[in-house]
C-alpha cells in the first residue's frame, strides 16, 4: 500500500484511522472509552475541524470481540478494504499483540491503547508500534516505589491465573526489588474464582506487610469485598491499581482507604487539556471521561500532531515524527520514547475516599509522579 493515490485538489482523500477494539465481549467498556477518547483527541488537536490540510480524518471502528483471531481478520479488512493509513487499538492485549505483526507486514503505524501488556513495547516490539496507554510496568513502577517507601517492605501478590496476571506480577516484583522491597509470595487464582478465602488465608499466613491485588475486570470487586469481609486490612496494608469508574463503583464501600497507582481519574489532573476533555466529554456523552478515555485522547492528539509534522500520512515519515514526540495530554506531558515507542506519562498515587454527592469512592491524590520517575526499563531487543 501507500499514500500515493492522491485525489483531486479540492477533494482530497480522507485520512483513515482504523480502530480494532472490543465493541462486544468482556472488555467492551474499555473499547468505548478508548474510541470516545480518540475522537475527542482528534477534535481537540484539529481545533474542532477534524481535518488536516483539508483532509478529513475518518475513524473506522471494527469489533474484535476481545478475540485475537477476530482482531486479525478485522485488521486485515481495514488494511485491505479500507486502505486505512493508521491502525489503532485495542482493548485486549492479546488482540493488540496479534495485530502488531500486521502493522509491520502492511507497513502502517499502529497506535496501541488501551492494551497494557509489556510485551507489546517489549519482547514483541516492532518499529510500527507506538503506545499512548501506560504499560503494566508503569503501573508497577508507580505503585511499587510508593508502596515500599510508605506501606511496607514485604509483599504478597494475588493476581489472575493467565498471562496478564503473570506479567503484572513479574513487573511488580522487579520494581519492588529495585526499590528495596521483597515479594514473599505470589498466588494466581483462576479468573472466575468465586471464593478467594484460601488465597487470602495464605496472604495472612505469609505475614507479608502489604497485599498487592492485581485484577482486571469483574472479579476485582468480588476479591476486594472478600478482603474487606475477612478484615484483611487489620492485618496488612493493601494496594491495587485503581480501575475505571464502573470498577470503583462495584467495590462499594469495600475499597475505602485503599491506596494504589492510578493511570487516570478525571478529577486528578489540573490543566487546560483535561478541563477541555472533561467539559466536552460531559457535553457529548453526559459523563466524565474515564480510565482509558485519556490515553485514547492522547492517541488522537499524537497522531494529529505527527501527521502535521510529517506533512503526510507516509508511514516512514510518521514514525520519524512520532519518535520522541511530546504531546500535551490530559495528564500533562506524554513522550513517546525512541527506544520502544512507549509513551512516558505522569502517574498518580491515590487513596479511595468517600465523598458527598459522588456515587462512587473518589480517588484522592496522594502523590503525582512524572513520566521519567515511572519509566519502565527498555526491554526491546536490539
Amino acid at each position, binding site marked *: 500500500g501507500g499514500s500515493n493515490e492522491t485525489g483531486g485538489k479540492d477533494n482530497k482523500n480522507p485520512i483513515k484511522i482504523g480502530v480494532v477494539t472490543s465493541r462486544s465481549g468482556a472488555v467492551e467498556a474499555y473499547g468505548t472509552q478508548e474510541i470516545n477518547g480518540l475522537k475527542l483527541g482528534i477534535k481537540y488537536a484539529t481545533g474542532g475541524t477534524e481535518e488536516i490540510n483539508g483532509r478529513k480524518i475518518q475513524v473506522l471502528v471494527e*469489533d474484535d470481540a476481545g478475540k485475537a483471531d477476530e482482531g486479525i481478520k478485522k485488521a486485515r479488512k481495514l488494511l485491505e478494504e479500507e486502505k486505512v493509513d493508521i491502525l489503532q487499538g485495542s482493548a485486549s492485549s492479546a488482540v493488540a499483540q496479534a495485530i502488531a505483526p500486521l502493522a509491520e507486514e502492511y507497513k502502517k503505524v499502529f497506535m496501541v491503547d488501551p492494551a497494557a501488556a509489556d510485551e507489546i513495547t517489549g519482547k514483541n516490539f516492532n518499529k510500527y508500534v507506538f503506545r499512548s496507554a501506560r504499560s503494566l510496568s508503569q503501573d508497577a513502577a508507580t505503585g511499587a516505589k510508593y508502596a515500599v517507601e510508605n506501606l511496607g517492605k514485604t509483599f504478597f501478590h494475588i493476581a489472575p491465573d493467565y498471562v496478564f496476571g503473570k506479567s503484572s506480577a513479574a513487573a511488580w516484583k522487579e520494581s519492588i526489588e529495585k526499590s528495596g522491597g521483597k515479594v514473599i509470595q505470589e498466588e494466581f487464582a483462576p479468573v472466575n474464582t468465586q471464593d478467594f478465602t484460601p488465597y487470602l488465608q495464605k496472604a495472612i499466613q505469609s505475614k507479608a506487610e502489604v497485599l498487592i491485588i492485581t485484577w482486571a475486570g469483574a472479579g476485582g470487586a468480588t476479591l476486594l469485598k472478600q478482603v474487606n469481609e475477612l478484615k484483611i486490612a487489620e492485618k496488612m496494608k493493601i494496594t491495587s491499581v485503581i480501575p475505571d469508574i464502573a470498577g470503583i463503583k462495584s467495590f462499594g464501600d469495600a475499597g475505602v482507604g485503599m491506596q494504589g497507582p492510578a493511570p487516570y481519574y478525571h478529577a486528578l489532573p489540573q490543566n487546560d487539556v483535561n478541563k477541555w476533555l472533561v467539559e466536552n466529554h460531559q457535553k457529548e456523552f453526559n459523563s466524565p471521561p474515564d480510565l482509558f478515555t485519556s490515553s485514547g485522547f492522547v492517541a488522537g492528539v499524537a497522531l494529529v500532531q505527527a501527521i502535521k509534522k510529517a506533512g503526510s500520512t507516509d508511514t516512514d515519515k510518521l514514525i520519524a515524527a512520532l519518535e520522541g514526540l511530546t504531546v500535551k495530554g490530559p495528564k500533562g506531558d506524554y513522550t513517546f520514547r525512541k527506544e520502544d515507542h512507549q509513551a512516558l506519562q505522569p502517574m498518580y498515587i491515590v487513596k479511595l475516599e468517600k465523598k458527598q454527592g459522588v456515587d462512587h469512592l473518589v480517588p484522592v491524590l496522594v502523590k503525582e509522579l512524572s513520566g521519567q520517575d515511572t519509566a519502565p526499563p527498555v526491554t526491546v531487543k536490539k
Partner: protein
Amino acid sequence: MGEKLFTNKILIAVVLSLLVLLPFVSDSRFLLTMMIQVFILAVYGMSYDLLLGYTGIVSFGHALFFGTGAYSVGILLSKTKEPGLLPLAILIAVAMSVLVGVIIGGLSLRVKDVYFSMITLAFAELFFIISEKWSSLTGGNDGIPSIPVPAIFRERIVFYYMALLFLIAMYLFLRRLVNSPLGRTLQAIRENEHRVESLGYNVLQFKLLSIVASGVVATLAGAMWAIFQRYVNTSVLGLDRTVDALLMTIIGGTGTLIGAVFGSGVITFAHEWLSSLSTVHPIFERWLLFFGILYIVIVMFFPKGIVGTIRDRWIRR
C-alpha cells in the same frame, strides 16, 4: 431421481466454477479472506458432522483436534523459524490427533450420551487450561504471533485456491467415507447402537474410528487455520471453537456433509455483516443480539438445517 441427481450435479458445477472464478471477478482481498475462512471452517464443520450427523456422537471437545493442528504448526514453525518444516508440522499434527483421538476416545467412549459429551468437554477444557498455563510453549492467551509460513502461502490468491482445493478434497474424502460400508455402519450405530453390536460389529472400534477420522480432518483444518492466520492462541482450543462446529453443522443440516459449508458461510458472513452494521445505527452496537436472533430463527424455521430443509422440499416435490 436421476434427473434430480443431474440438476444436483449442475448446481454443484455452477457453484464450483463461480468459486474458481471469484478471484478474477472480485478484486476484494477481504472477500477472499472471508471465503478462505469459510472453506477452512467448513472442513472443520464437516468433520464434526461425521461425528454428530453420521455416528450420532455429540462431542463437546472437538476443538481439541482443531487446536492440535493449529498448535502443531504454530509451535514447530515459530520455534524453529523454519517455514520449510511445514509438511513435517502437518505430519506431526496428524500423528498427534490420531494419538489424542485414540486416548480420549478410549477413555470416554464407554460413557454414554450427555455424559460422553460432558467428558469430552472436560478433556477439551483440560487441554485448554494446559495451553493457558504452559505459556512458554504456547504463548497462552497472547498466543504465538507471526508464525513463519512459507512465502507462497502468504499469496492470498494462491492460498484461496489451496483452501478451496482442501475443501473439495476433504469433502470427497468424507463423502466416500460415509458411503463406504464403514460409513453405513456408523449410521446404523447412530440409530441403534445395541442392535449393531448384536449384528456382530464391535461398536467401540467403529466409534473410535469415527472419532479418529473426524479428528484428523479437524486437525488438518486447524493446521490450515494456523497457516492462514499466521497466529495461534488458546482460543483454538476454547469451547467457542467447539460450539462453532456445532453451529455450522446444525445450521447447515446434520448428516449432510455439504451442509457445513453453508453453515460456515452463514456464520462467517452474518458475523461479519452484523458486526459492521454498528456504523449504520447504534442499536447494532449490540450486533450479537441480532446474531443470536438469527440462530434462533434458523433453528425454529429450518429445524433440519439449510441443506436438510431444501432436501426435504426437493423430495416432496
